[in-house]
């Protein structure tokens, strides 16, 4: 199978991740398109036999981070965003809407971790490579992201977390 054919097989999953990460379809597909163009230019640098999927997600992550930087402080506010109570669980349709809204309230770096692990099912080590972070940082972000998401989905105020030792 040619490198290009392998590339194509990853498009649906790249789109899924981008949609969840960027929050809207147009921005997400732009991100995928940019990623593919970047991948095409750099394809010779990718070693056949190594994980193409992780490599593509890494490219996408770097593009996403650059976009966030370029778009300025609006995204930083997400970090400080007050918990908007969003009720969950009444129905599936509502729950799906809720998870969109809840994700949007997470800081983007937490969103990326929870999506790579929970949606794209990367191992923690792979997620760390994609994000260019030590695995310990990935784990602590994952932990914060999940607790934050739980608070948002359950519509309750921030409480101090119990840490298992």
């Amino acid at each position, binding site marked *: 199978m040619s490198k290009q054919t392998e590339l194509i097989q990853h498009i649906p999953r790249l789109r899924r991740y981008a949609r969840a990460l960027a929050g809207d379809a147009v921005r997400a*597909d732009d991100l995928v398109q940019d990623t593919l163009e970047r991948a095409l230019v750099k394809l010779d640098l990718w070693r056949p036999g190594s994980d193409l999927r992780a490599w593509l997600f890494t490219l996408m992550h770097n593009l996403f981070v650059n976009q966030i930087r370029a778009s300025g402080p609006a995204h930083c506010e997400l970090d400080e965003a007050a918990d908007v109570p969003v009720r969950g669980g009444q129905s599936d349709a509502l729950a799906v809407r809720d*998870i969109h809204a809840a994700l949007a309230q997470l800081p983007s770096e937490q969103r990326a971790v929870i999506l790579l692990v929970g949606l794209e099912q990367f191992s923690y080590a792979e997620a760390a490579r994609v994000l260019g972070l030590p695995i310990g940082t990935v784990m602590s972000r994952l932990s914060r992201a999940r607790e934050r998401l*739980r608070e948002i989905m359950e519509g309750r105020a921030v409480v101090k977390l119990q840490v298992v030792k």
Partner: protein
Amino acid sequence: MSGITEDDLHGYADGQLPAERRLEVEAWLAAHPEDEARVRAWQAQNRGLHEAFDSVLNEPLPLGMVRTANVRRRGSRPLWRAAAAVMALAATGLLGYGIGVQSRPVAMEYAALPHDAALAHVVFSPEQRHPVEVDAQHAEHLVGWLSKRLGHELHAPDFQALGFELLGGRLLSGQAGPVAQFMYQDRQARRVTLYVRRDGAGRVDTGFRHVREDGVEVFYWVDRDLGYALSGAIDKAEMGRLADAAYHQISR
């Protein structure tokens, strides 16, 4: 404490622990309901993410995106220029659905048919969870829906005599407008796809043609307003028999 860490709880929720450790965490959770509630909530989040976003895997794939990924890089300028044009289209966000197709010579359209069909085959035929958008149990609805979207009556050929069952179908977006893809599977889980789109209206019907695209055998033809391409990574002679059956059923 049995040395269960926060990381172990996540590893458990994500199914990333070795069996032995998993049992230890299970025992810990049985004794610590608060942790158990957290782990269950995280697992519910994972399920929620899949429920919310797995449908993206099923959406019409912008074939321009596929083309971008598939540009052959042999340094030949015209191909790069074509790719640049596709990228420019993509940037408008209006990929697919007829943009720019009028300026494309008909002969080129026709040449792209087996190529696009092979790409679509390669993208969707390995898919385990969502190979099709509408399954064969709703065959009537499937054919009606795709016919409506293409603006032309379609038929899904019956390959049962040749050992292939209809799995279902999906709608894709091509540069020349919507495209229907029917997927079939035999008992060994080998898959073939029939790619159908409106093609070169008013042109004389063509006979069968065959091409091999990156390991995929493609038989294609034009019948009245529609272009058909049957793709599969299986024996050429067998593909030929399937294509022959499709051709005769469709032109009947």
